């Protein structure tokens, strides 16, 4: 809770503030919890009464009002919530267009099933097709810009024929629209996320048309959390929950599409299940399970949780030298 003096109310002069402070009321929290505001009013002079009334009025105004469903839909339309294309046709088809802004999508899969490849492909696709800034938090140094450049190149070729010089320019622009952060522990990741939240709307170092941040990728979220989870300590659990909270906050308040990755652990009957346990389960809105078939080199994506479309749909794509290609496109 902020301090009272930070509210910047005109009547809250230093003298009044010192009187309040003498009663042990320094932060807004102290003010709201102090049971004897009426006593304070009676005790103080007339000005103090006004101040208390003003603070109370200010706090009233902070309250969030009720919103009808209709109003919610209108707001949503006004904001222009969109689906960000993943660049992989078969996946876009089952997700009704791609990753929805304002939701948190989780990719689950064992090692080497294509999670990072899909993340990089989504980053390339969103930066190129939506002309938006992409923030990519990399926790195990798996972001390969050469690979992303290949993917952007393929996307450019399939959409329209650019001339040589223009294509190089365009590639540079798109790649400058992807911002990579390195975080090797949860604390640095949390401070990056918090500062992203605080500084959205500010100028990032990116080309003019890419100023608008629309996609946040954390690859991989589970490798940040797994070292601190479990055992007798509860602190690790608290950190995991607050990581989930700030990710959701970024998604909902800033209308970002958030994409995170998670690994799998052996569940019942040797069936792989998402790691991080029950309390992480509620964090993502969408969960996609990736499996890889080494014999055919095909990656299967299955929707195992989705807040707005039916589950149990499947799509598949191949990881090729040029990027990701949906299985249908190959045929």
């Amino acid at each position: 809770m902020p301090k009272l003096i930070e509210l910047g109310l005109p009547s809250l002069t230093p003298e009044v503030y010192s009187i309040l402070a003498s009663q042990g009321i320094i932060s807004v929290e102290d003010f709201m919890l102090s049971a004897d505001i009426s006593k304070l009013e009676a005790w103080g002079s007339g000005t103090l009464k006004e101040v208390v009334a003003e603070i109370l009025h200010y706090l009233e105004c902070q309250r969030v009002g009720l919103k009808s469903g209709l109003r919610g839909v209108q707001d949503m339309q006004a904001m222009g919530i969109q689906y960000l294309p993943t660049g992989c046709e078969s996946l876009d088809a089952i997700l009704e267009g791609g990753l929805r802004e304002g939701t948190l999508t989780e990719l689950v899969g064992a090692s080497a099933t294509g999670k990072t490849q899909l993340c990089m492909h989504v980053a390339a696709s969103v930066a190129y097709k939506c002309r938006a800034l992409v923030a990519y938090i990399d926790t195990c140094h798996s972001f390969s810009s050469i690979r992303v450049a290949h993917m952007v190149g393929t996307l450019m070729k399939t959409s329209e024929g650019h001339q040589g010089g223009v294509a190089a320019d365009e590639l540079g622009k798109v790649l400058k629209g992807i911002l990579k952060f390195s975080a090797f522990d949860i604390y640095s990741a949390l401070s990056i996320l918090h500062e992203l939240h605080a500084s959205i709307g500010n100028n990032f170092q990116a080309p003019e048309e890419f100023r608008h941040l629309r996609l946040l990728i954390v690859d991989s979220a589970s490798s940040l959390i797994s070292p601190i989870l479990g055992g007798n300590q509860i602190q690790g659990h608290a950190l995991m929950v607050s990581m989930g909270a700030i990710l959701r906050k970024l998604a909902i308040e800033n209308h970002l599409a958030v994409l995170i990755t998670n690994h799998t652990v052996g569940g019942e009957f040797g069936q792989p299940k998402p790691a991080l346990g029950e309390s992480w389960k509620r964090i993502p809105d969408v969960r996609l399970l990736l499996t890889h078939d080494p014999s055919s080199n095909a990656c299967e994506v299955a929707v195992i949780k989705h807040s707005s479309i039916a589950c149990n749909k499947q799509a598949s794509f191949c990881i090729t030298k040029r990027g990701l290609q949906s299985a249908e496109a190959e045929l």
Partner: protein
Amino acid sequence: MEVALLPLPTSLRAKLFAAGHFTTTTLLFLTPLELAREAQLSNEEALSVLKLVPRSSSSSSSDGIISASSALDGAKTAWDLLEYEKNRKKIVTSCAELDMILEGGFCPKEVTEICGVPGVGKTQLGMQLAINVQIPVKLGGVGGHAIYIDTEGSFMLERALQMTKASIDELVLASSLSSPMDDDLIQQLDIDTYLSHIYLVRVHDPTEQLAVINNLPNLLKEHNQVKLIVIDSITFNFRQDFEDMAGRTRLLAEMGQKLAKIAEEHDLAIVLTNQVTMKPSNNEISRIVPALGESWSHACTNRVMMYWIDTQRYAHVVKSPSLQAATAAYDIDECGICSAKNKSNNKSNNNENKSNNKRLKLDEEAAAADSNNNPAHFC
């Protein structure tokens, strides 16, 4: 931001909570002395707490420019990274086919894991890399030093000497063909220089291993030329005497993060070797998989699996963000790692190899733990 999210020791956190500091906003306007008095900390502790409080969270939103100490400063655009990745030098393996599937060798800033059955050449490759990282810049190499963390006691100095000699001979031959050598280069291409630039650390138990890895940043301050760290093997100490398997997973995950951080910050390559284990699958055919479990497999950037087919050694890129899944054959001779020899061309060698391989295969059946101090690790 909440105080609980700051990287603080539990005792300090409890003291801050007791003094009523639950969010960082209440800490923003305190001086270290005030905080020390209020929360009963030492002055140094109070200072360290206040250093952790993100200053920009309140200030940046008002003035619109991200302040200098912001956590967002670490950001790099993919374009900058592309420039870096195109120009970086890789550590070659001395086997052309292996270099080809790795697109030039082992990358700096990345953690690469080599897995394989005992005797397939993991340690040999590790030693070869520790030598090849020293190829002078003038000859197209990285020109760095190497730290070799040996947990199994399998680093053989005689063997390293042999491989160094062969490597230097080859370099001298190659460079003298193109241009005359200057004194500088002659001094660099010296066996003593080479061996003195491999810093060998022997660890005996998991605690020691963790301590060495935690201390690596200090070690790297002293030896800032280091461009490669080999840990052979990451597994050995963690495969025995561990009862708390969840605890082991945690320790390993933390170790993986630390290694990734060191690789990134000091711009060096980290190569780990890992043992393998049998995994029973549903259709009752057991598969050989890397040890340490599923969670660990996310810790490394790249993973290369080494295996035998009959008498030929193969390496396969299993996992990588930028490389294609590909296989290459390689051999190990007295000079170290080398390209696979065409077996039909030298039949006389072939028989000898076969008998060696048989011996090695017998070794495989012995447990991995017995592989200590076994000089028969190479052909």
